């Protein structure tokens, strides 16, 4: 643990990693709460995995065609937004085919990403870091982008709080009030896409879904309103990410995977705690 604190004090990469984790936890707490209560974590999973397609394409263009300005993170953003809109439109227009389309976007996105990465000369280790995270590789440029995305997600997520909450709680009623339910649903999916990209820098695209849902679900066992759920989930995510970094640093474990294990343990503790509390009302 001492080594971790030493690294935080002396190494910029560790400070960037911590900052990334803290920024990510805010978006995660707010948007994750919507995702869990609206029960669209499968959609979030589809968006997360399709991100590899965009990352792979950006990586390919960067190395093979010399588009050095094109960071994989930009590719990830584009792919996530496209996946969100495709899944959103299909689930609004043809509800019965929703799961098929999510599965297709999920797998085809990954397949494209793998093809692009294998067509790119160089280290294929990069594939591993996209899949399972490379928070220690975050640069100050990435950090600015993540910060900007975070502000955007937070601003939109809170500005539309009452509307998104009403649509998540009871879509049919919201329609009877003349609310633009489809608009808010697509907005929520776009927020989910942005959040997924932010979280992918922390734990990688395969593990995103756990970080997006486990702290929220843990918080949900002790909170009784969306607002409190968001705040507690944000705090939990921040603690989980810091703990993941701290635990993984000295033994040189993969930070992303360690973070997810910590998230899992946190969820389990909250689950058991809420079960064992005597005289619990249901």
């Amino acid at each position: 643990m001492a080594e971790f604190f030493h690294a935080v004090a002396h190494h910029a990469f560790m400070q960037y990693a911590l900052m990334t984790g803290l920024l990510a936890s805010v978006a995660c707490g707010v948007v994750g709460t919507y995702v869990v209560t609206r029960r669209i974590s499968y959609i979030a999973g589809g968006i997360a995995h399709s991100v590899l397609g965009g990352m792979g394409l950006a990586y390919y263009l960067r190395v093979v065609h010399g588009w050095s300005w094109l960071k994989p993170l930009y590719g990830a953003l584009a792919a996530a937004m496209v996946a969100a809109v495709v899944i959103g439109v299909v689930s609004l227009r043809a509800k019965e085919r929703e799961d098929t389309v999510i599965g297709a976007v999920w797998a085809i996105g990954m397949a494209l990403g793998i093809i692009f990465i294998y067509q790119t000369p160089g280290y294929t280790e990069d594939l591993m870091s996209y899949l399972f995270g490379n928070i220690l590789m975050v640069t100050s440029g990435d950090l600015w982008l993540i910060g900007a995305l975070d502000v955007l997600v937070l601003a939109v997520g809170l500005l539309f709080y009452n509307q998104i909450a009403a649509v998540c709680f009871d879509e049919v009623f919201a329609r009877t009030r003349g609310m633009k339910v489809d608009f808010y649903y697509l907005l929520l999916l776009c927020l989910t896409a942005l959040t997924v990209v932010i979280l992918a820098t922390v734990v990688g695209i395969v593990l995103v879904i756990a970080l997006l849902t486990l702290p929220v679900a843990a918080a949900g066992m002790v909170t009784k309103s969306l607002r409190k759920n968001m705040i507690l989930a944000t705090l939990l995510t921040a603690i989980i990410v810091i703990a993941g970094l701290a635990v993984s640093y000295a033994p040189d474990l993969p930070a992303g995977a360690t973070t997810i294990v910590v998230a899992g343990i946190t969820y389990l503790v909250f689950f058991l705690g809420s079960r064992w509390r005597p005289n619990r009302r249901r």
Partner: protein
Amino acid sequence: MSQVPVIALEHVSFSFGAAPVLEDVTLTVEAGDFLWVVGPNGGGKTTLVRLILGLLQPDSGRIRVFGQRPKQALGRIGYMPQSAEIDARFPVSAGDVVLMGRLGSGRVFGAYSRQDKEAAAKALGAVGLSDVRDRHFAELSGGQQRRVLIARALACEPEILILDEPLANLDVVVEKEIQELLRRLRENLTILMVSHDPALVSQDVQTVVCVNRRVAIHPTFEVEGALLGDLYRGTVRVVRHDRTADGESHDG
């Protein structure tokens, strides 16, 4: 000035794909009516409600609410959905559920105004639940949850209240409470209420609408004899099942 009916359906038909759900439905609701819409499951009751709410479009026929298209009249309707459609474990307080009734097409984003909060508090008071405002929706009893959903509909400050199965799966005491609440509300509102249980209609209901693909309308009248009244400990009305216009009888 001729009185525009609150709800008017003229020869409305609706089908899901090839399966007809409603055929040639004509129905007029006047201001102050209390309608009880009954019929078997899958008979088209909820579809009828969703047509009136503009959530579904009829294949043929015309629907008018206050003389307007349903979507234009939404602001004047308060709706309570079947509670099975609500995720009762959703992290939200009773008061926040009622506030959701204040949202509408006018405001795309932003917070609730003081006026919204006052209207929500008044609606919660009208259903007698001011004291549970800050409680978790999931912690409320089944009957309280129904009343919160009715309060949310009232928060819209509607002229018509449309309730889908407000009495389903409640015990007799709670059912009575809700009926009592509706009796009070009907003084100022037109009420249209859906129920799968056609057996007995409360004494307040004026018109029974039987929906099973086709629609038959029956007036209710009070039972003179003591027999039924004794049986159900109170005044009851029975439905005279007339034959439908085309002469075929239907199962009630």
